[in-house]
Structure formats: C-alpha cells, structure tokens
C-alpha cells in the first residue's frame, strides 16, 4: 500500500510538472520544474527501498544488515539533490524576472504581449 501511494505521488507530481513545463509562461515553467524536482527526490528516496521505523545509522544492538537498517546513501543523495534544486529554482527565477523586465513579457520566447499564443 505504501509503495502504491508513493508511486502514485511520484506519477502525479511528474505529470503535473511536465504539463506546467510545456506551458508558455515562465512562471508556469518554474513551477513545473519545482514539481519535477519533488518527484525526482521522492524517486531517489525510494531507490533505497521503503522501510518504516528503521535507523539509517548503525546501532550496536542490531546486526549490521539491511533487515535492521535503512540504506543511508539515497538519503544523502536526496539531500544533495534538494540543495541543488533549490539553488537552481532561485537562478531560474532571477533569469526569468530579468528576462521579463528586459523583454516586457514573461512569455518563454519573450514575445510582446498580445501576439503570443
């Protein structure tokens, strides 16, 4: 059940992200990228298999195997991915705002308002 919920969550986020990414306004595109990065983070997290209530660090009273612990590496990878995605969203917002003020349009192709699709 947990797998189904997580997989559906990833699927819905990806679908929404792709839809927004294909729209013509930079704001929608940035939101789409954000949703896609959430979906990716969940996917990487699930690469370590889903387990409830197991610690990612070794504990002396438990045998050192994956029956008693969760895989810590995907969690570290997700942390890196989250940081990079945040930074990239910030960069995109700055570029989009600058493009909007220079080109007087937040269309991704920077067309003048009124003649865009």
């Amino acid at each position: 059940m947990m797998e189904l919920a997580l997989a559906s969550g990833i699927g819905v986020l990806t679908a929404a992200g792709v839809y927004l990414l294909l729209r013509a306004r930079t704001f929608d595109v940035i939101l789409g990228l954000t949703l896609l990065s959430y979906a990716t983070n969940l996917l990487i997290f699930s690469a370590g298999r889903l387990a409830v209530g197991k610690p990612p660090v070794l504990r002396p009273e438990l045998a050192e195997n994956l029956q008693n612990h969760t895989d810590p590496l995907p969690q570290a990878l997700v942390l890196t991915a989250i940081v990079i995605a945040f930074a990239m969203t910030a960069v995109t917002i700055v570029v989009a705002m600058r493009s909007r003020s220079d080109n007087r349009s937040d269309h991704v192709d920077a067309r003048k308002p009124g003649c865009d699709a």
Partner: protein
Amino acid sequence: MNHLPVLPILIPMLAGALILLLERRGIIVQRIVAWTSILALLVVAGLLVDRAGEGGLSVYLIGDWPARLGIALLVDRVAALMVMTTSLLAVASLLYACANWDRRALHFHALFQLQLAGLNGAFLTGDLFNLFVFFEVLLIASYGLMLSGGRSLRMRAGLHYVVFNIMASTLFLIALGLLYGLTGTLNMAEMAARVAADPADQAIIRSASAILLIVFCSKAALLPLYLWLPETYSRTPAAVVALFTVMTKLGVYAVLRVYTLVFAAGAGESASWVWPWLLGAGVITLVLASLGVLAGRTLRGTVAYLVIASAATLFIAISMHTGASIGAGLYYLAHSTFVTAALYLIVDLVRRQRGALADRLAASAPMPQRTLLGLLFLIGAVSVAGLPPLSGFIGKLALLGSVPADQVWWIWATILITSLMTVVALSRVGSQIFWRGQNDPVDPATTRPTAPRRLEVAAAIMLLGFGIVLTVAAAPILDYTAAAGAQILATDEYLDQVRATLPLLRAPSP
C-alpha cells in the same frame, strides 16, 4: 600519498573562492590569482598526462573511503588528455577575456575558475553521482558566465538554456535513482560488475541507462537535442563561448566513459547495446549540422553548427568502438575543441569591425583589419574543414582509416561529403566577408571601428597554434590517443584497480 589527481579540481576551486574574497581589490589582483591558478593547472595537467602516459591507471579515494562507499577519482590516459585540453583552452579564453571583457562582466574570474573546477571534476570522477554534482557545478558557473551583464535577447536565450539544462539534470537524477535502486552502487567500475552479475534486470537497467544517455546526448548536442545550441552559443560572449566548446565534448566523453565501463563486453545482454544507435544518430546529426553550416545566415550561427558537426563526428568515432577509432576520435576531439574556439574568437573580432552589420552574412565595406583577420579565418577554416595540411586533415584521415571494413561505404561517404559541404560553406562565408563589397562606399556607422586588441588577436593565434602543434607533433599525440583508446576498452583493469586501491589511514570496514 600522492594527491596529484585531486589538484585539477582543488586549484581552481580555491582560486575561485579567493577571487571572490579579493573582488574589491580591483581587477589586477583578480587577474593575478586567475593566472596563477591556471598556470598551476597547466603544470598539474602536464604531470597527469606524463604519469598516465606510462600506462598506469590511478585511483584516488576522496576522504580515504574505499571506492564502493565513497567517491573515487579515476585518472587514465583519456581523463588526463581531457584535463590537458581544457587547461590549454582555458589559457586562451582567459587571455581573450583579459583584454577587456573581464572588466565588464561581473564576477567573471570567480565564475571562470569554478567552471574549470566543474569541468576537471567531471573528467576525473569515477562515480556517477559525483559526475552529476560536477555537471551541476560547471552548469551553474556557465549560467553566470553566459548571463553576466546580459540584456534582452541574451536573457531570453539564457532562460531557454537554463530551463533546458535543469530538465536534463532532473533526468540525470531520475536515471541515477533507478540505477542505484537496481545495482546498489554508484561507482562506475562496481556498477559494471553488478550489471554483469544480474541477468534478471537487464531490460530495466538498459532503460535506466537510456535515460542517462538522453542527458549526455543533450549536453553533446546529438540529433534531436541540438536545437538549443546555436541560439545559446550565438548569444554568449566570445571569451566564454570559447570555453563552452569543450562542454559538448564533455557530453561525448561522459558517454564514452560510462557506456564503455558500465556496459563492457562482459555485461551480458546489455553489452554494447548503445553503440549502433549512437552511430546512426551521429551520422544523421553530421549531415544535418553540415546543412546548417551551409544555410547559416550569421557568422556565429555558422560556427555553432560546426561545433555540432564536430561533436557528431566524435560520436561516429566512439561508436565504431574499436581502440583505433576511439584513439582517432580523441585526437579529433582535441583538434576540434581548439579550432572551433579559435573560430569563435576570430568571428567575434570580425563582427566588431563591421558596425551595424555585425555578424550577418552580407557584403560590407572593406574592413580595416582585413588581411590579418582574413588570414586567421583562412587557417581556422582550412583546419575545421579537414583540408591538408592542418590538424583537421590528420584527425579525419586517422578516423577514416579506423573505420571497420564492412561499414566503410556509408561512413566514408558521410564524412567526405559533409567535409565538402563545410568547405563550400566556409569559402562562401570567407569570400562574402573579406572579398565582396570592396567598392562599396564606406558606411558612416562603420567608419571608425576600434582595432582588435593585441591580447585578443594573440588568444586567437594561440588557439590556431595549438592546432599547428597538433599537426607537427601528430605522431606522438596519435600514439598517445591510440593507447588511450586501447586502455579504455580494457575494462577489467579498471575494476581490478578500483578494488585494489585501499584506504591508507582507515581500517577497512566490513
């Protein structure tokens, strides 16, 4: 312990941080730090090539963790050659920028060093997630370099570039998540062993690695994914785009590294599945890019298609997948990086002499610096088209010589016909810019263009000079690249070496 392999990453990273701290002290201090860093980088690259040339493979464990747990750097002949090419290219780009551009672009020197750190890291790493991190480092620096001081149209091209690359990075992460879930490791050599040992999941491993392939091919501008390149590169400042020419080669390098190592001959069903696809895509891209060169309406657009064509030629070389063809491809890689960078610099100099006409391909009144720029353009064009006697000819000759007999007819035909198309296109460009319109009245807008600065011309000459060195020293360099091609195919050695390298200070964990 020998820390040489990590220096090409550490030196520019420290220099970049130092430059940020010293930015208030003026441009001279920044230039001193930048040049010190880059000269140190050249020395280190020379040592790496020297050491790799002896045939050894060195593995460096970052933080002294064993390779299967931590991050390993991997230095072989190919990686050393790429670091050397990048350092040489960076010298010329920095020289060009120091003429004037670095005063106008905010944080230029710091970003430039970080970009170098990212490039070198991506060439040296032996770990897939680390490859992602260094891709991000160099991409973030490249956004800054491209957009610093930019306005309107450059911002639009920049937005496309940024969004496209974030998409590619997202796909990269998806592929990594799947591959880690399937194989339980991110070290490339370890992953190769686990792919070979896991016949049940071959199909899904192949699908995950296909996602990864899309990412690398979008960086390398292969067939359906090259549309971003002409516009982006045309809007990027010349000193920066000269360094960017190595970024498409990074995509090719990543494909070569990952798919040779992970899907080696021993990988069962998935062995070498990728190469027939890449060969076809490379041939079609080469034809389309050459048509793009023929159809170019601006100078920078024409050079952008030359960059795509050179990456496509490299894909053809690596996907024939013999030691000889990879070796020829590596020689061609160094040659094409230098010559396309040189053409970008020359075209920028020409563009500034033409006033309002800029880089559109149309006859104009005579340029003041016609002889010098015309001569530089001629050398660059001869070299990039593959006419004798320059390095392009030797590269293409070695490549044609390495084609397996059963594929000769169509690969020879493609490469020779596209070379002819390039020659035709570049002759047209050259005659239109340098010869036509000599009797036209001088346009008042272009009467007093500033002469190119000496440093800028020197940078262009330096890049063409690298090509001439490649021509004169062709025999030893071809020996080196052929040995590199043979080395990268001997994948068992990589796994042995990665496993044999043990932490020095830390007791091995269970």
